[in-house]
């Protein structure tokens, strides 16, 4: 049994230590909000926070995540209140198909923690997630709105 610390809770999972964190989250812990897009760290759909850092969970093993604080999209809202990024996403009607948006939101939440009022250039550098529907315009608008919230 591997012990992980996810969304403020200590949990045990029957999973091999070399399993990518993504699959442990989705299959062993049932946290399916974190999405599989490419498996090779390219698309960002599986982005979670590890000790506060935005991380592509397909490219981190369970062994590497042991002892660290893992936060997924399911743990972003606190005490039933949506994170301001989630709220901005609703206010600006950002998602289209929505599949990449968990990862997008986690990447943005980490950016705003580090850089509370990012410039467009800083947004360009930090948000590298692929979105095939093409929601980038609303993503940018919503980031600016959330940075003022």
């Amino acid at each position, binding site marked *: 049994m591997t012990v992980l610390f996810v969304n403020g809770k200590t949990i045990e999972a029957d999973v091999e230590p070399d399993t990518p964190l993504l699959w442990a989250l989705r299959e062993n812990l049932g946290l399916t*909000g974190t999405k599989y897009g490419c498996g090779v760290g*390219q698309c960002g759909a599986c982005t979670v926070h590890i000790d506060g850092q935005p991380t592509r969970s397909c490219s981190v093993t369970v062994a590497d995540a042991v002892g660290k604080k893992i936060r997924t999209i399911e743990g972003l809202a606190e005490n039933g209140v949506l994170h301001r990024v989630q709220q901005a996403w609703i206010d600006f009607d950002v998602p289209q198909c929505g599949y990449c948006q968990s990862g997008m939101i986690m990447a943005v939440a980490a950016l705003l923690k580090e850089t509370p009022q990012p410039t467009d250039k800083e947004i360009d550098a930090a948000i590298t997630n692929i979105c095939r529907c093409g929601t980038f315009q609303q993503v940018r608008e919503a980031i600016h709105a959330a940075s003022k919230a």
Partner: protein
Amino acid sequence: MTTEIHIGRRGFLIGGAAIGGLSLGLHIPYGAEAAEAAAAPEVNAWVLVKPDDTVVIRIARSEMGQGTLTGLAQLVAEELDCDWSRVTTEYPTPGQSAARGRVWGDFSTGGSRGIRDSHDYVRKGGAIARQMLIQAAANEWKAPASECRAENGVITHAASGRSTSYGKVAEAAAKLTPPANVALKDPRDWKIAGKGLKRLDTADKTTGKMLYGVDVRLPGMLNAAIKACPVFGGKLASYDESKIANFKGVKKVVRVGDNAVAVIADTWWRAKIALDALPIVWNEGPNAQSNSPDTAKWLADGLHNSEPAVTGNRNGDAYAAIARSPKIIEAVYGYPHQNHAAMEPLNATALYTPEKCEVWTGTQNGEAALEAVVAASGLPRENCDVRKVMLGGGFGRRGFADYVTQAVLIAKQLPGTPVKLLWSREEDMTQGKYHPVTQCKLTGAFDADNKLAALHMRISGQSIFSTVRPQMVKNGLDPAVFQGLAATGDARIGYDFPNLLVEHSMRNPPVPPGWWRGVNINQNAIYLECFMDELAHASGEDPVAFRRKLMANHPKHLAVLNAVAERAGWDKPAPEGLHRGAAVFMGYGSYVAAVAEISVAPDDKIKIRRIVAATDPGYAVNPAQIERQIAGSFVYGLSALFHGEITLKNGRVEQENFDSYDSMRLKDMPKVECIVMPSGGFWGGVGEPTICVAAPAVLNAYFAATGKRIRALPLRDANISFA
């Protein structure tokens, strides 16, 4: 502890996990409502009203991000005159539809048809339900229905001062005979439709609760990873499962049809690593000799006028006009195979027993998916069904049901055990139904007065219909090849040429083709609109002015072109260092145009500074969502322009993931200034048309910046990239 959530009248999903005390709610977007709604009166097939006045609107088409779910609900709600804040939606299943004589019409969601092909009957559904609800109230009050009116879900009878709500009369309304005829509202009177209302499906997409096919979990479910022969048309010869006998979690290794093998395990990750370790022998067949450069040569041969071809559009005598012309301009363009690369890899979950078979999946065509279940299971249709969930993108790929067939063939080998089949990204990339490959030779002829006298377009290459729906191809003519270049229909050419000939020499390489967002307007718009730019420059005219002269009889094409030219300030010089290109086209019943403003650094790095885009879709059901479809179309269309190319080497697709098949990022994307200009009187689509003007607008701007013509995609092959 797990939670069972009932879906519809049968079926279930697990909504909770038992691990380590985590309690995880899983919202079933349509199913949970559907379960409750089962107790609610169905006023008619489209509308259910609960006692608490919540209205459930049934949506037959599939939501994949394009907003059709919200738009269709708006149309029903508009005619229903219900309270929009109390509207929810649900998908009927294809099985229910079959059992009820296709009461919900076509489920197919492609060709930007969600609204434009169903607006009439879904609005009637809403209007009929409204009339039945009013009649029920009138019956209760013993008042004439004509004296009662409905607004916002409340029915009033002014003369007696009485009022009631839809929820209170729904049960009585459901027992009435539907009226045979109903009048629909004039779109000018719309209050719910025509407005940029927020989508109905957003909240769960921000919390991770939205359920996609990949997230489906059933009690006792196993997971399958699959590998099909990497050479198209090849077969599975053998595999040695003894090599993975000791792999943890593996339950079974199965043949899937004649060309694939799947490993079934307790988790997908364990299935995948076992599959990767499984020795497999393929009978690759003749296509193992196929290489993209050879295909390109074969297509180029088809550009010779001596080769057989069929005519798609003709007026006058282009050959004769070209023969006598003192000035001829000729160019050859090409468009490669491309993959859809929807963010959610293909998947389907199937539960087969000797009595029945059910599938949970994201599909653009529920009815086609059901037929796949029937065929693969061998069971009667009434014992099969498909439960649709949210699609993580479709772009045409999920209009095919190959992955549904596979899921059923796998589940059939484990009766009673639900199995989720998930393709790896690599499988998704290499087992596609690709954007067809074509080339086009264009010849323009000017007369002695430097006026354009003729245009000859000779297309050589792949026909989608010849593979996917051969009955549509008559005497070698696939009408879809001429999308955007046709004389009539919903994708008409926007110019009058004194002499015109558009022909197609069909050449189908061994790469399965499919509908790819925008389909054939993508390459046809590049061919025509870039060449129009070439002709304008050859004649010494401004590219927009040159186009306008030929558009006198195409006022709607002209109107969108004028709209973008005006907004972009086309008649004034571009700001220092910036260069503009324009394009205009028609597809899926809508008229679209764009101006791109770009800068090009000396190392051929392009920065797109500004995009102005106009769309006339006839009626704009949700202008806010149309703007998002327009902006998103540039991301899809410019990803294709800069990055998109699938190539074959020894019959195998060379691109396996996003590292070799890249997609545009946020940094590459400027703001798109959208002009939604519905002129009324027709219904055009919005999900696809704009894609086709993205690439030619940027290519024409690149010429304005550099004097160089790029006539083949993707730009990375010419070492041109985003800055």
